[in-house]
């Protein structure tokens, strides 16, 4: 256990480096490439009404006339202190605009993640009881199929089926961003299922591969010869090591989950950070876009850090090797 602490420290330091690079990418993408925040935010037709002097004043006010590296250091410092400044047009604090959408999206993604993991573990164990058997083929075929369904298509089909044909629920549940969290939870039911259809399929494929590998290993065979029942080998011996490839894919998976929820939120009009991002893109509010992109990357990196530590705890081999891929 004592050897794990320096390793965790190393991961933390690496995560900090990666997050700084992310901030640099976001800064380059939003502020340097297209000119600057002022010309990006104000539409071209309105820009014509400003005198060059006014624009220069606004530039100065936002510090856009300073060298790029100073501006980056400032953005970096702002993002890392989680103080995201004010919006350009209305001058409201970015923090206020993204706080509730962020909590709502965290509820959505968190519930989706929990449902997904439960479903994936059940399906993965069932499928690996007899690899190549009828149940395995049925589950594997279905997941390859659902994995191929675009998330906005799945969401729209849900709207058609549940709202139009069955009339069970309203097509979209209108909830304001600061609605009580129980209302948000109710509004999240269909989006959660829509996210799971795609995401669970991906995780299932990783888990199944790991399970089959683990069940073919020497120790599983030994346990079998020792008379341990098949289901106990599956759950007690194979599952922990089969979780490792799944956990190694956490960064990619959480990133995909966030990508997916931007789309799904937009279909169901869910008042989350995805909808806020689209609004910010339409208004070209650079500070909000920066904040959301940075927070999304932060979520991915933190999730990956937790998964890394979980892998260290699960796999005694990793604890001794220090190679980081």
């Amino acid at each position, binding site marked *: 256990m004592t050897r794990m602490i320096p390793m965790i420290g190393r991961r933390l330091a690496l995560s900090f480096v990666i997050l700084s690079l992310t901030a640099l990418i976001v800064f380059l993408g939003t502020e340097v490439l297209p000119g600057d925040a002022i010309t990006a935010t104000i539409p071209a037709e309105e820009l014509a009404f400003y005198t060059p002097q006014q624009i220069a004043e606004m530039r100065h006010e936002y510090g856009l006339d300073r060298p790029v590296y100073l501006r980056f250091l400032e953005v970096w410092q702002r993002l890392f202190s989680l103080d995201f400044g004010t919006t350009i047009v209305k001058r409201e604090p970015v923090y206020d605009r993204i706080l509730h959408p962020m909590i709502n999206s965290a509820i959505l993604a968190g519930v989706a993640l929990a449902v997904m993991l439960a479903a994936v573990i059940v399906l993965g164990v069932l499928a690996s009881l007899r690899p190549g058997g009828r149940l395995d083929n049925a589950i594997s075929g279905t997941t*390859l199929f659902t994995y191929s369904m675009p998330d906005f298509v799945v969401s729209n089909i849900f709207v058609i089926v549940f709202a139009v044909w069955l009339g069970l629920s309203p097509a979209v549940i209108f909830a304001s961003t600061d609605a009580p969290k129980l209302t948000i939870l109710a509004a999240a039911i269909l989006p959660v299922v829509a996210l799971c259809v795609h995401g669970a399929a991906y995780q299932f494929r990783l888990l199944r591969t790991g399970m089959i590998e683990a069940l073919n290993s020497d120790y599983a065979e030994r346990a079998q010869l020792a008379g341990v029942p098949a289901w106990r080998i599956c759950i007690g011996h194979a599952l922990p090591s089969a979780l490792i490839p799944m956990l190694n894919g956490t960064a990619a998976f959480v990133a995909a989950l966030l990508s997916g929820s931007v789309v799904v939120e937009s279909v169901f009009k869910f008042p989350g950070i995805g909808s806020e991002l689209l609004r910010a893109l339409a208004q070209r509010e650079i500070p909000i876009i920066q904040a959301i992109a940075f927070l999304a990357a932060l979520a991915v990196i933190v999730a990956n850090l937790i998964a890394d530590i979980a892998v260290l705890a699960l796999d005694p081999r990793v604890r001794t090797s220090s190679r980081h891929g």
Partner: protein
Amino acid sequence: MVDVLNVASETTATPRSSTLKRALSQPATVFGVILVAAHLFLALFSPLIAPHDSSALVGAPLLRPSWEFLMGTDQIGRDYFSRIIEGGRIALLVSFCGVAIALAVGTILGVLAGYVGGRFDEIIMRFVDAMMSIPEIILIAILTLALGKDIWALIPVVAAVYCWGVVRVMRAKTISLSTLDFVRAAELRGETRLAIILREILPNLTGLLGVELAVRVSSAVLRISALSFLGLGISQPTPDWGLMVQEAMGVVFTDPWFLLLPAVMLSTLIIGVNFMVDGFARAFGIASTEL
């Protein structure tokens, strides 16, 4: 989603033709190949097949299907059949060009990082980690904001987004290749690093490149249509399935098939690619967990 370490097995001893046969003996793989072939055919020749100009107003809005308009007309009176069969062209073209650039750049960086290693590897990989921790759709949105909404500007955007996953996969494969005997032998013969990369490593990456091309093009098509659906990608009057799903949301209660048809087209393309790649990857002994 394609960036999980690709643990490829050693090259199989069986000749290529029998591996192909084995791949095509699976009905699911054949199903995938047929879907992909049909989609490629449409992408290449749909303007010749389409009975009407897909972006011209040719009839009254929302006409029922008839011999003249096989799938009726949309809300503003464009021929829906022509729009459906042309709706994947631009997305596929943009994805293909973008992914081709991503593969070229990604392979070079990945092979160098994997074979040269050291400080260079460390720097490249941390940059890859950073790029890949920004969710794809947010990254694409930022880049389209920077480069403009022009269709051709989407090509460098796709390249910039998909390059990093390729780096990771190619680096992993290069590391596993460079421990094998034939690379060791070349090193002992005193060949230069460049010669080893060109003659020993690159030829062994071709199968993986094929898989990467198919998987990433389909993933890029998916992202571009999602983007068009959100109003950030391909814009009117170009026919695009994602855009058509978006337009159809307005009439979903009266004419749900406007939504279902482009959705089916898009899904069949992605399903086709995934079934095809899954089958070939299995037959060629490439682990398909990265699908």
